[in-house]
């Protein structure tokens, strides 16, 4: 299944936040969206999963979601959004309940997804026992448990310290190599964008327009931080965004 964004514009009252956005998230493809703060990245992501309606334009699902998908468009949130009173097992079972699955079905799915994400040892831990990185791993496992067609990731690593971020990025790359999921990955971190994105959509400051779509034609696992091509790409993106970020920073909020 693909997700196509067609002529999407959005206003908050008189304030335009997004203007004429067009791009497609293909199967097994990670599309990173970057842009200065307040450019409407998160609003765009909320629309992709149907949590908000665009003022104009539409978001289209193209093709069928994978067989057995319980929730084709599934979010991974910046602040994890785990229920603190439920264990890792319980947090994953939460999103499987109410779909008419039997208890054994639910348990097999949980066992399976915990194995795939290498979290089996943490099944009965509760969130307050887990580090930030582990919480986000659990949230990713929860998202994978429903067999999504497209993962919608809202700055998933932004709440983590830089070392944990590095570890999780490697995890995500490994996971993608095994699972080949499609994702829309919102971030303000250019390094994440060049390491994880097959394509990088650069948005301008408010109202957000697509400034450029950069294709990165390099396998994810080869993208080493020391690779000059990666460094060059990151520098190019920064050159593109510097002015916008500077202007956005000096803007008064209304």
């Amino acid at each position, binding site marked *: 299944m693909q997700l196509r964004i067609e002529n999407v514009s959005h206003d908050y009252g008189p304030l335009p936040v997004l203007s004429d956005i067009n791009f497609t998230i293909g199967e097994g493809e990670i599309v990173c969206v970057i842009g200065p703060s307040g450019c409407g990245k998160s609003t765009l992501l909320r629309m992709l*999963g149907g*949590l908000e309606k665009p003022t104009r334009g539409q978001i289209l699902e193209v093709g069928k979601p994978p067989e057995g998908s*319980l*929730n084709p*468009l*599934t*979010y991974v*949130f910046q*602040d994890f*959004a785990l*229920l*603190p*009173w*439920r264990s890792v097992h319980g947090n994953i079972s*939460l*999103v499987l*309940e*109410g779909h008419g699955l039997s208890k054994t079905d639910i348990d097999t799915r949980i066992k399976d997804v915990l194995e795939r994400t290498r979290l089996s040892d943490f099944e009965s831990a*509760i*969130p*307050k026992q887990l580090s930030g990185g582990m919480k986000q791993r659990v949230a990713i496992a929860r998202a994978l448990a*429903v067999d999504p067609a497209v993962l919608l990731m809202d700055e998933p690593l932004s709440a983590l310290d830089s070392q944990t971020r590095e570890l999780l990025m490697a995890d995500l790359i490994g996971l993608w190599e095994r699972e080949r999921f499609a994702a829309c990955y919102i971030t303000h971190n250019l390094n994440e964008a060049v390491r994880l994105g097959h394509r990088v959509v650069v948005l301008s400051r408010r109202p957000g327009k697509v400034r450029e779509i950069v294709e990165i034609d390099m396998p994810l696992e080869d993208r080493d931080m020391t690779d000059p091509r990666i460094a060059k790409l990151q520098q190019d993106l920064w050159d593109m965004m510097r002015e916008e970020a500077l202007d956005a920073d000096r803007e008064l909020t209304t």
Partner: protein
Amino acid sequence: MSVTDIDSASTDSDVRPVPFRGGGFKTIDRKFVGLGVFIVLFAFWEWGSRSGFISSLVLPAPSEALEAFMDLARSGDLQLHLAASLQRLVLGFTCGTLLGLTVGTLIGLNSLARAGISPLVSAIFPIPKIALLPLFIIWFGIGEGSKVATILFGSFFPTVIATYSGIDGVDRTLIRMGQSFGLSRWHIIRKIVLPATLPSILSGMRISASISIILLVAAEMIGAEYGIGAYVLLAGNLMATDQLIAGVVMLSILGLIVNFLISRAEKYLLSWRS
């Protein structure tokens, strides 16, 4: 600055440790201090009564109150009083809490209910329910009905307010998470909203339980044959201050037990809080 510079500086006479300015503002759990205060107070009271420093007319000695309590236990009336009181308390408090939870949840989740009911709650909450007791007697009879109704009303309003303000405080990202996974509204309420409201509901119960005990005694002072309130009232009318103290101590212990039970429930149900 090189390493040798630092070494030579530390041998300087003009060297002092950084003064400590932190600490304080943090309470440490000190066990047995509270118990100690009780023991000292009672010992002083007993000593004062025996030495004639405190006139027994003004305040009977703790030992006299204990004697009155033992008399009550021996006569078999203690059970009758306690059973009557506990029955009213449990019935009124349970019904009031359940109704309060229902109405509070409704106000928390439905904007029409909020607009319609919450001003009413704000208007009735501050009325001392004891003032309504004569009305309740007319409506529900002088027997159990009016007493239970008083307690029910007293515990209803704090629960309503605790519930809906708890729902207001639920982390919206958790609700959005539920929606994003396609959970039904009922699932979101039952599995996300209500568990997240539990801390607020329990602290509301702490307040409503204390209010219930106060109202229990007040209600039992009018037209009750048995009950701790009736016992205290009778003792007061007879100037039997030893019985009065015994009754009051029973109420205090009842309050402590209820509080203890709620603390245990909090510890057990809210162990997930960091």
